[in-house]
């Protein structure tokens, strides 16, 4: 019952890196901040934008480049200060600082102004119909507090002293930070000045437990009530244990393979041209991939095979795109032969082994499937810290990557993965794919206000992508939360577990 105080002991693999809401745009950190700080807008579990600190928002009449936000009234910060438009202005500007890790999402912002105490206008360089999507992780800080503790900029690594905001927080969120021992334990309790109705959970004890086995054990031994990042292989056992239940839900992240489609010659291939430039080869790879097998065995059913490089919630997704062809080894062989590789070729496959669910196992499985069509993939699997630079610096021929879409819109995918690699866009376009026509379209949707038109263009882009087989999508990840069965926590596609929506009976 909501009445009595309920403590919830919560464990997941990582701890928030910092309490400063703008200096690390990273899963666990954001999750923690969502309890202490609040954003103007947020999403429900189906990914639909809903009000939070802002009650409504719209494009300013007559000026398509400006967004207007109406703020909720009577909001107080934990330290009692009032939440006003000034704080929003301050926070957005803080986000724009070059030591902020969120500035990428606000690159288009030209200026923020407080019209009155509870109205804010954000001026953008151009029309940006979906700008609010970028605000779901932009937390609001108290200007006064920040200035008092001189944390008006996010932590700068270059200088040597720790900023006050790293261990202290003052937000408008439903919970206030009681104590924090980084990497060990963080305690939060209900902030009774909160505007929303009182959550069931009134106290949170958050303990990071890195090791899967230990985390699971902690739940089984009753030392924690709720566990995130449940390894797929333990789901069955956990849901089988009485007193414990597991809830699942699709995650906003697609796992896919990609390959160098630009270079003359590959770095690691046995042949001295670039097979991936040949459409037949790319098709052959697609036919080699047996998504169901991976789903059945590697993912133990905990994944959603897909043919397109985006999860269903994302704007632009269609049944049609999601379809994928059934594996066909013989056809693949033929195609390779046709492409001029009758007895295949060999190439290195780069793979992370500490980032996505069973990432290394997926690669191994694919290596086997490729081998059967005659392509020898030498698996090079290593830590993400070594893997990601390969993609960002285009030093890999063939790689696995997972991509989440926080704004829930295709443009996000296009910008980072499809657009020609430049220093603003195409940062994760490791395939070197470059298509002038697409680039213009990608730019176009950024500023297209008419959603009908916009979606039409998006569809065109996707068709091109699928035709060129830029991505070899494998599946959408599925998240699983395990918990005592007297509590129920819905799975959030962003993996942002929300204790304030948690029900306890």
């Amino acid at each position, binding site marked *: 019952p909501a009445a009595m105080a309920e403590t919830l002991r919560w464990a997941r693999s990582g701890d928030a890196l910092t309490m400063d809401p703008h200096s690390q745009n990273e899963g666990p950190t954001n999750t923690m901040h969502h309890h202490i700080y609040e954003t103007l807008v947020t999403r429900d579990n189906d990914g639909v934008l809903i009000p939070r600190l802002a009650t409504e928002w719209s494009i300013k009449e007559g000026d398509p480049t400006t967004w207007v936000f109406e703020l909720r009234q009577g909001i107080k910060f934990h330290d009692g200060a009032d939440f006003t438009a000034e704080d929003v202005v301050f926070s957005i500007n803080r986000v724009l600082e070059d030591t902020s890790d969120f500035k990428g999402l606000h690159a288009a912002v030209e200026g923020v102004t407080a019209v009155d105490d509870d109205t804010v206008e954000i001026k953008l360089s151009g029309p940006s119909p979906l700008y609010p999507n970028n605000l779901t992780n932009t937390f609001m800080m108290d200007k006064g507090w920040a200035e008092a503790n001189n944390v008006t900029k996010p932590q700068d690594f270059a200088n040597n002293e720790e900023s006050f905001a790293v261990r202290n927080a003052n937000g408008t969120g439903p919970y206030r930070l009681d104590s924090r021992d980084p990497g060990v334990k963080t305690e939060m309790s209900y902030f009774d000045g909160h505007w929303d109705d009182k959550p069931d959970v009134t106290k949170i004890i958050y303990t990071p437990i890195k090791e899967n086995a230990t985390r699971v054990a902690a739940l089984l031994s009753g030392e924690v009530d709720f566990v995130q990042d449940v390894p797929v*292989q333990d789901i069955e056992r956990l849901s089988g244990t009485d007193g414990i239940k597991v809830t699942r839900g699709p995650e906003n992240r697609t796992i896919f393979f990609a390959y160098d489609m630009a270079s003359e010659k590959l770095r690691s291939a046995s042949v001295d041209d670039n097979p991936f430039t040949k459409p037949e080869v790319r098709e052959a790879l697609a036919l080699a991939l047996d998504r169901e097998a991976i789903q059945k065995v590697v993912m133990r059913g905990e994944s959603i095979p897909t043919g397109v490089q985006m999860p269903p919630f994302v704007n632009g997704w269609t049944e049609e795109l999601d379809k994928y062809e059934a594996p066909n080894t013989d056809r693949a062989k033929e195609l390779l032969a046709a492409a001029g590789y009758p007895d295949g070729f060999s190439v290195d496959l780069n793979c992370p*082994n500490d980032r996505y669910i069973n990432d290394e196992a997926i690669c191994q499985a694919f290596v*086997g499937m*490729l081998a059967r069509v005659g392509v020898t*993939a030498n698996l090079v*699997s290593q830590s993400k810290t070594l893997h990601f630079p390969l993609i960002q610096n285009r030093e890999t021929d063939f790689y696995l990557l997972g991509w989440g879409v926080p704004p829930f819109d295709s443009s996000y995918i296009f910008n980072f993965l499809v657009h020609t690699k430049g220093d603003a866009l195409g940062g994760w376009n490791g395939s070197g794919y470059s298509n002038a026509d697409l680039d213009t379209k990608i730019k176009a949707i950024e500023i297209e206000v008419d959603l009908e038109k916009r979606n039409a263009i998006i569809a065109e882009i996707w068709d091109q992508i699928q035709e060129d087989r830029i991505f070899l999508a494998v599946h959408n990840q599925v998240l699983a939360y395990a918990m005592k069965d007297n509590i129920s926590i819905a799975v959030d596609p962003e993996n942002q577990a929300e204790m304030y929506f948690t029900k306890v009976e």
Partner: protein
Amino acid sequence: MTDITPEQTQPAKPARPRGRLTRWWDSDVAWSFRHSPVAIVATFVVAVMSLAALLAPWIAPYHPFDPATLNLLDGFTPPMQENQFTGNVFWLGTDDQGRDIFSAILYGSRISLFVGISAVLFAMTLGVTLGLIAGYVGGWIDTLIMRVADVQLSFPSILIALLVFGIARGFIPPAYRADMAIWVLIVSIGLSDWVQYARTVRGATLVERSKDYVQAARLIGVPSGLIMLRHVLPNVLGPVLVIATIGLALAIITEATLSFLGVGVPPTQPSLGTLIRIGQGFLFSGEWWIILFPSIALLALALAVNLLGDWMRDALNPKLR
């Protein structure tokens, strides 16, 4: 010599050395071996495992290292049971990629045994040599070696491996990368282990070298090198054997860790250690066989090697025969 009963005087004047083999057969070590069941059993185990590893390609029912032969759907088949999708049956079951555990153990032992043993030998030779020199010669050489050791100690094998790997990658052409991996592993593990041998041997040498028999050898004019080798070494070997035999299993496990960090053999060629590492993921999920059988193999090996070590130490010590 001073025996009294005739039949005992007979062997007094020992027979002239016969063929090499017979002489070896007659040697005390061989003799004490023949009379130590433990040693014989242990040797047998080691021999069987090494042979199995060597002959893996011929005796293994499957080829776990050849991805083309793997069927993912065979994954997670329990021992001696039909797979739910393919209906195939495997003696010891399969791992997450559908590799037959039994074959995987055979193939995996090849890597593990080779890397493990070579790494230990490498570390031991390096450490013992430096330790002897440091302890016996002393002076600034001692200081130098020991400070180098301190530097060495400050780096965990992970970092050493990354360094060795990175450097090796510098001058080894991509074509040879695959074969390079193994050597990188051996060097890295060896490098991170030699210090304990060096320091132990040095300590013992400091004690031994002040003893009269070493002085006597110096007087005879035996060159320092040989004194270390023939006089000091045998008398300080005890602890070395202990460390080495215990270290083997550790080296095999380290190999798996390093491979996981991407500086070793690729996951498509799981070593014994890697199999165990994979199995660890399935401790609670019911696939006990993935970790059980490889662990048993590793245990058997470790036990046998240690028992051999114990025996050898005693056999090499005349007073304990």
